């Protein structure tokens, strides 16, 4: 046995260090399907509690939609449970390619390749498509999976200040000597809920001969008038070279992701992207469910319209109650507290009030930027939001933060 006591002790010390730093993560067990109301066991071993869920990525409320569940059941019956293979050996069914073609049409691109997750799509893309002759220029707030993917690639890495187009232009000028330049951004930034300036980014990319990569995981299905994503929202539909996105959020919320974009780049991923080459195919049941999701959101914009209404209504309620919010026009509405301990206490108190939300703090967000990230869903009805705001107000009063200006909140956090 190589796991000697000294080795065990080292890991125990590391884990104690994580706890002491207040960074220890614990799961809460949910005893119901994902929805606007869930039954939560927390702390572990306690009786479950019915809560309003305001922190899921279930933007379109399709995670437990009866038609999606029925389609998944039918897919299970027709195509089986698993593929027991990577895609290129014997893991590709007709429905995998059908889903890729449907995603291509929905996103307005040239081709699509499914990955086990968008994390995998981002981890695999850069190494497959770029090398030391190229430069990747990323917004500093891109998702961690992009950071990991860039680190696996031999291409030069650079970054620009969050959504600072002047800084991006400087970087594009600086790297004119490279074979190619790729500008990399999230469509909607998951922690702040703000939207990339994609029209400006596309214009700069055209001026400086660069390609554009967008992770649209927090946008596909609802941003833009027909829910195609941030590129539709910003008026640059069809002009993004690479979109990565997920089936694990608005599009049913199960799992799976994709690279969608220029045909040659997608084909390079099929030939070289290691997470694609060395992971099992997405399970048929998920593919069948995702196809139904695309049917639903292509037939009607009702769900994304309701989500838009909910987000606007919720923002209004929070503002009226006197909370400090990050500005934005997405279903991600961060309630700013600036203090890591307060964020944790606030989330715990919300749970006691029957509202399920999570505090985020460093290193997930920058130091001094702790918050409760709320996320809206088309599964929320007005009465959910009216009840949730009562919980927020009660907890806000308890911690005496309602109506405080941003500077006052920050000063309190720094004290």
């Amino acid at each position: 046995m190589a796991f000697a006591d000294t080795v065990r002790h080292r890991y125990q010390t590391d884990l104690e260090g994580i706890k002491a730093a207040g960074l220890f993560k614990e799961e809460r067990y949910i005893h119901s399907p994902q929805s606007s109301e869930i039954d939560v066991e927390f702390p572990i071993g306690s009786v479950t509690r019915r809560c309003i869920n305001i922190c899921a990525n279930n933007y379109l409320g399709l995670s437990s939609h009866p038609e999606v569940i029925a389609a998944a059941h039918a897919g299970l019956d027709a195509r089986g449970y698993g593929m027991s293979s990577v895609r290129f050996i014997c893991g590709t069914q007709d429905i995998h390619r059908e889903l890729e073609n449907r995603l291509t049409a929905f996103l307005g691109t040239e081709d699509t390749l499914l990955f086990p997750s968008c994390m995998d799509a981002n981890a695999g893309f850069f190494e497959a498509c770029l090398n030391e002759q190229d430069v990747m220029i990323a917004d500093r707030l891109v998702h961690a999976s992009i950071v990991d993917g860039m680190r696996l690639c031999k291409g030069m890495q650079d970054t620009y200040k969050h959504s600072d187009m002047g800084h991006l232009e400087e970087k594009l000028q600086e790297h004119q000597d490279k074979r190619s330049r790729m500008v990399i951004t999230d469509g909607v930034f998951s922690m702040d809920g703000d939207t990339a300036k994609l029209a400006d980014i596309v214009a700069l990319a055209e001026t400086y001969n660069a390609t554009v990569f967008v992770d649209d995981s927090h946008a596909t299905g609802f941003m833009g008038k027909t829910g195609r994503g941030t590129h539709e929202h910003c008026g640059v539909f069809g002009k993004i070279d690479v979109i990565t996105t997920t089936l694990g959020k608005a599009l049913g919320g199960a799992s799976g992701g994709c690279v969608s974009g220029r045909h040659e780049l997608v084909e390079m991923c099929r030939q070289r992207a290691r997470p694609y080459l060395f992971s099992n195919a997405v399970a048929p049941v998920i593919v069948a469910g995702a196809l139904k999701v695309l049917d639903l959101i292509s037939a009607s914009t009702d769900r994304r319209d309701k989500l838009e209404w909910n987000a606007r209504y919720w923002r209004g309620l929070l503002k009226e109650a006197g909370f400090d919010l990050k500005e934005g026009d997405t279903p991600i509405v961060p309630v700013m507290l600036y203090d890591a301990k307060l964020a944790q206490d606030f989330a715990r108190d919300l749970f006691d009030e029957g509202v399920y939300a999570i505090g985020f703090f460093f290193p997930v967000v920058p130091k001094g930027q702790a918050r409760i990230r709320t996320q809206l869903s088309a599964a929320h009805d007005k009465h959910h939001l009216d009840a949730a705001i009562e919980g927020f107000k009660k907890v806000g009063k308890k911690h005496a933060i309602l109506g405080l200006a941003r500077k006052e909140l920050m000063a309190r956090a720094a004290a």
Partner: protein
Amino acid sequence: MDEITRVVRDYITREYLQEGDDRQITEKTPLISSGIVDSFSMVSLLRFLEKKYSIDIPDQCATPEAFDTVERIVELVRRFQKAEVVRS
């Protein structure tokens, strides 16, 4: 303040502070541990130093500790400037 310190401080202010962020970067301001510079964006600082001072800083020396203040960065630059002189 000597020339290298001024150059490094000005670069960090320009490269890392968002518009409207009026924090003053001093020689002892924590950069990494305060979150002003993170390991992802540190690459551009490393490349700037190598290009500006014609030095090579190996990856194992470009640690968060070595980059945590302007003072330490300047020490690092000086150390590798000397190494370059010896090598040449």
